[in-house]
Each structure stands twice: as C-alpha cells, then as structure tokens.
C-alpha cells in the first residue's frame, strides 16, 4: 500500500491533525455544541453535555435524527405503524404541524383530539415532539385581501389577536409535553403570502406568547431559503435574536455538497448573528425533494458542523442508513469535494471514513487515507451494502468504487491524515475545481475571448433560470449576450429579460457589504432612440435582493459602458446566483459584449442610501 504524507487533493486550510498518540482531535475552535453553554435555554444541559464529552474524551455525537410528518392527519392504525417504523429507524423525534385549521376549525372552537393523540403516541415511543405553528386558519384571513381559497392557508391572520389566541391555547394545552415550537414551515414565497415584516411580527408574537405560558419553551425560527446565510444573518441580526432560541435551516438540492459545506462553514464561524447569539442550528428539511444519497451526504456534512438535530421527511427515512450514520462521531476531514469527499468519524468499532463521489468513480484507497490498511479497505461498503462491495483491484492496487451513496471504510488508522475540526471556508474553497480567480483582479464575462470567456463570473450555467434564457449572438463583430423580451399571451414562456450572473465564491462570498463592488456593462447603444433601452441590476444585498437605480442606454450605434457601484453587495449564492441584469421596461433587446465586476477601491456614492 502506498503511503502518502497527506491527501493530494487537499490544497488549503489550517493544519489540524489528530495527535498520533492520543488518536484524538484537537480542533482550532470550539464546536457549536461546545458553544451552547452561553445559550440561555440550554445553559445547564449544555455544560453537562460538555463535561460528559470531555470526561469520555469522545468527539461530539452526530445530529439526532428526526422525522417531519403530520401524524395527526393519519388514521390511528397507520399512525401507530409509522411511529413504530420511525422508532426502529433510530429516529429520536418528530416535527409536525399543529394545523391551525384542525385545532380551531371555527373561531374560538378548539379541538385537540387528533393532535393530542399524535403527541401522546409519539411521546409513548420516547420521541420528542416539535410542533409547527401553522399553516394559517383559512377563516382567519381577511376577505378583503381576496386570497384564493386554496391559498388561504399560506396567508396571514387578519389580526394578531387571532394568532395570539391560537398560540396561547396551544402552548397551554401542550405545556409539559412539547418544548420546541416552530413558527410556520419555511416561510418563503411559496408558503407565505406576506411581507417579511409581517412574518417577523408573527414570530415575535408567538415567542412572547409561548414563553409567557412556558418559560422553558424554545422557539425555532426557520429561514425561508435553502441554507441562505445572508437571510440567516438578517434574521439573527433582527430583534428575533433575543426571542428565538433555535435557528432552523433547509438544505439545498441534489449534488450541492460543496455549496452546502461552504454555507455551513460560513454559518459556523462568520455569521455574526449566529456566532454572537450562539444559537444552535437545526436542519429542518430540504428546500425540495432530494435523493436518499443526498440526504446521507447532507447528514454527514451536518455532523461535521455539529448540527444538534437533523429532520427529514418521514418518507425519506430509511433504517438502512439512519442507524449506522447516527452512531458516528465526527473527528475531522480527509478530503473535500467537489468530485470526491471523505470525512472521518468514529463509532464503537473505531475510526470510520465516509467517502462519496458525485459520479461513480474508482479511486486508489490511498487517495482517501494515506495510511490505508488493506484488510480494512477490503471491507468497504456503501451505506447499507454488503462488506467489500465497494472494493476494486486494478493492477494490484486496492481501490474504492465511490458513488453518490457514501461508502464506509472501518478500521483505518487515520491519526496521520485527519484534519481536525469542521472544514473552514478556506478549506472548502480550496477544494473547488479549476483555478481561483485573482482576488485583486476583476472577474468578467467576455464571449468574444476564445480562452476563458467566463473568468470568475458565470452566466452560461444559469441560462435555465426563469426569464434568463440568454443567447450568445455575434453582433457588430463581437459575441454578445442578448436578451429576448416579449410581451403577450405567451410572456411566461417567451419573455427573457434577465441575465443572471454568479460571482466565483473564491473571489467574493458573503462580503456583508464590506467589499464595495462595481459592475461595468458594455453594450450596444439603443437603436430605437433615447429612453427606449435601459437596465438595472437586481442584486443580493445586506438587506436582501434589491434593484440598483434604472440606467438608460444612450441612443445610437456603438459600444457604451456603464458602471454601477454597489456598497451593500452581499453576494452569497442566494437562489444560486448573485445578481441579474434586468431590462424589463425597455422597448428593445440589449446586446452586451462584456460584464466586469471589480472591487471598488475608492469610497463610492452609495445606492444603499436611497
């Protein structure tokens, strides 16, 4: 077996290895679990947990797995069978809606029968219960808002007294049985027909009401996005930081391990609202249905960042992976994606490597663990698979067949290889493919360039976005990006007024407005004349997405350059992009020959001040 001093793919980050003699990890910073000690609701328990961990000398446990399921809506027979299945799967809790329409079908007429039975049945199986306050009672919506009947459960109550009555009744009824309360399920544009301030008021009111009934209760505030760190930052910087005790996040879709890891890394150490308030971060689910192997990958990543709880839909739970993975304790990482991931854990049997690949690929075992023991490698298997089924032998070289479903390799001596602690932003970014753009130089797209037409700024991968089917077209001797605007009955299908852009995360990610940026757009003049063609930029800012001021493009042919300076940019990959050029409002299409993003050196006039 070839022995290497260090995994070749690892190209950055701090040097944090397990001390060979102790076979233990010394992290460069305390874990989230360890930081819970200053979290008011968990003061004594967290200290106790830390003391026990220290005494045992063990790495922190993997997240407790929970199921998201509406037990109260199930027939009693199915409910019992489902709870038995969940308990046998290794699940420790359930998260379920306390549907306002069910418990208060008519104003002031409360009925708890179904939810009582569900909560009691879950508790009888030793499962802790999180109740979600919502969805909205359809009768509580103001008729004047003309909300379509089938959408009223996504709306908001017409007055706060109705909401507070429901919350108070629920808190009183379940006091002593339910400690954690979540306010609405993923309050995004799909689930919540209201403005952000309206949501914040609901949360503040619920927190005040629940805790007035039960001071030991904890409020979970969910983010609306998918590991949207900019929004999490805003939430935790708002007044909610004192009234809510747990932050809930939703995961991104399939094949997003690098994006998730980067968000986790920044959340873990850089989001001031989280770091200063030291709130535990729970995984509440995913933004969209994801494949079983993605759940496993995301679970392992969540373990690396010490998320205390990990909820997923009951239908996605599988004893085949929940049992073995929930026994793991994270110790460090060996290799971070994008193509191949290898994280180090330990369980009762000793060290365990969990490795996966976005696509099926065979790698020499020594690539993952420099001191790979042949006998240990020969037992490698995908989670839930037969021992040895992931082993390959090529010219006497022992290898592993990696797939999106993580492969577990037990019994390796990892003392010389593991980088302790959760991967930092630098660790994750260093593992991204391709060359990192020079942080001091601009990033740009220029499709006339034969080499590197997208240099640290990307549009091609975003042309499947709504309204963003840009075309590359030769125009006046240059290869340009052009829009296709359309107004008419097929607008949703044919109108493409937006050009989406993503800045390389290694160049700028979660800048929090500390890095003013300037975007320069070079485009052809307006052939229809003055004030017929214009644009603005819809960008990720410290206060959410917002528009820059409208900019008219000068009349006449010839290339024009426009520079838009943003002092509050907070490019965080929210929704998969950082900004888009919008020309809706123009009477003609635009031909853009280049877009350049640079760090603005001098103080610039702030559009944020509008």
């Amino acid at each position, binding site marked *: 077996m070839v022995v290497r001093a260090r995994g070749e793919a690892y190209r950055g980050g701090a040097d944090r290895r397990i001390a060979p003699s102790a076979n233990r990890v010394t992290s460069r910073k305390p874990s989230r679990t360890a930081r819970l000690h200053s979290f008011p609701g968990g003061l004594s328990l967290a200290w106790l947990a830390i003391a026990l961990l220290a005494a045992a000398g063990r790495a922190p446990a993997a997240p407790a797995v929970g199921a998201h399921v509406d037990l109260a809506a199930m027939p009693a027979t199915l409910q019992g069978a489902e709870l038995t299945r969940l308990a046998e799967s290794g699940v420790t809790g359930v998260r379920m809606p306390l549907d306002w329409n069910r418990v208060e079908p008519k104003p002031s007429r409360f009925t708890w029968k179904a939810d009582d039975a569900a909560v009691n049945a879950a508790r009888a199986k030793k499962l802790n219960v999180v109740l979600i306050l919502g969805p909205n009672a359809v009768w509580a919506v103001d008729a*004047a*808002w*003309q*909300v*379509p009947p089938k959408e009223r459960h996504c709306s908001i109550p017409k007055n706060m007294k109705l909401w507070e009555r429901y919350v108070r009744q629920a808190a009183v009824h379940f006091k002593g049985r339910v400690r954690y309360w979540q306010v609405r399920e*993923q*309050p*995004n*544009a*799909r689930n*919540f*027909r*209201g*403005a*952000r*301030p*309206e949501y914040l008021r609901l949360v503040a009111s619920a927190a005040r009401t629940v805790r007035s009934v039960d001071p030991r209760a904890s409020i979970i505030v969910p983010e*609306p*996005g*998918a590991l949207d760190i900019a*929004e999490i930052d805003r939430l935790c910087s708002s007044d909610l930081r004192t009234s809510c005790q747990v932050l809930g996040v939703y995961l991104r879709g399939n094949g997003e391990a690098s994006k998730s890891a980067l968000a986790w890394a920044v959340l873990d150490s850089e989001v001031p609202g989280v770091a200063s308030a030291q709130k535990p971060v729970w995984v509440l689910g995913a*933004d*969209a249905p994801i494949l079983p192997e993605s759940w496993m990958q995301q679970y392992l990543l969540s373990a690396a960042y010490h998320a205390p709880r990990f909820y997923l839909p009951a239908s996605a739970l599988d004893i085949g992976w929940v049992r073995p993975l929930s026994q793991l304790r994270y110790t460090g990482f060996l290799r971070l994606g994008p193509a191949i991931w290898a994280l180090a854990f330990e369980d009762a049997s000793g060290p365990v490597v969990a490795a996966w690949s976005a696509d099926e690929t065979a790698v020499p075992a020594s690539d993952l663990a420099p001191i790979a023991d042949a006998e240990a490698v020969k037992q490698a298997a995908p989670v839930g698979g037969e021992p040895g089924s992931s082993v390959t032998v090529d010219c006497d070289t022992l290898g592993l067949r990696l797939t999106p479903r993580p492969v577990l390799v037990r019994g390796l001596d990892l003392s010389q290889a593991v980088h302790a602690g959760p991967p930092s932003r630098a660790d994750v970014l260093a593992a991204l493919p391709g060359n990192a753009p020079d942080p001091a130089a601009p990033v740009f797209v220029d499709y006339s360039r034969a080499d590197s037409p997208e240099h640290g700024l990307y549009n091609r991968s975003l*042309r*499947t*976005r*709504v*309204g963003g*089917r*840009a*075309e*590359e*077209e*030769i*125009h*006046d001797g240059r*290869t340009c990006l052009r829009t296709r605007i359309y107004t008419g009955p097929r607008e*949703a299908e044919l*109108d493409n007024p937006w050009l989406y852009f993503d800045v390389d995360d290694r160049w700028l990610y979660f800048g929090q407005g500390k890095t003013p940026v300037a975007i320069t757009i070079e485009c052809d003049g307006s*052939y*229809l004349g003055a*004030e017929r063609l*214009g644009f603005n930029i*819809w960008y990720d800012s410290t*206060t*959410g*997405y*917002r*528009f820059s*001021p*409208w900019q*008219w493009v000068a009349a006449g*042919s010839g290339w024009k350059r426009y520079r838009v300076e943003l002092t509050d940019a907070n490019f965080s990959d*929210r*929704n*998969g992009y950082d900004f888009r050029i919008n020309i*809706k*409002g*123009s009477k003609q299409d635009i*031909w853009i020959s280049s877009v350049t993003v640079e760090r603005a050196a001098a103080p610039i006039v702030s559009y944020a001040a509008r």
Partner: protein
Amino acid sequence: MVKLAWRLVVLAVVASAVAFAAQPAAAQNQVQVAQVDEQPAATGEYPNLSGVRAFSAETNYMSLPGYLRWMVFREQSVWLSVPEAKRIVAEQTGG
C-alpha cells in the same frame, strides 16, 4: 373595397420591411441558444420594491403592487391578489 384591401396589404408589407431594417443586421447571427427546461423558481421572500419608482421604466410602467404581482407570477407562477400586493408593498415601503 378590393383596392382598399390591397392598400392595406401593401402597407403591412412595407411596415414589416421597415421594422426588419431597423433591427441590427447581425441579429440573425445566432451562435448559441439555450434550449433547456427552466429550473424551479427561486423560493426566497417576495421581491422588495422599496426604492423603486412606480409607473416608470424600472417597474415596466406599472404600479408597485402591479409590478410585484408580475414578478411573483414570473418567478412563482402564482398570482397575488391586488389587495394582497398592495398590503405587501405597503409593508415593504413603510407606507
């Protein structure tokens, strides 16, 4: 009557030719067109229109609630009602 119809046809042809000539000649030189299904819409909060001027180019000459409704429909394929949009914009703009 026939003469009038012919005049209309000729006028339409001339107008089309003028409109075509007004387009840049290179406009037909497409080298790459994205032909793929659209990804699911973004699912963050509703667009914040504070600071945007109503009935101007930046709102496609719509009111703020009207523009919000249009944006939400484009991104979510769901129409907000007019009163809802008015309420949400008022919350966003403090109005």
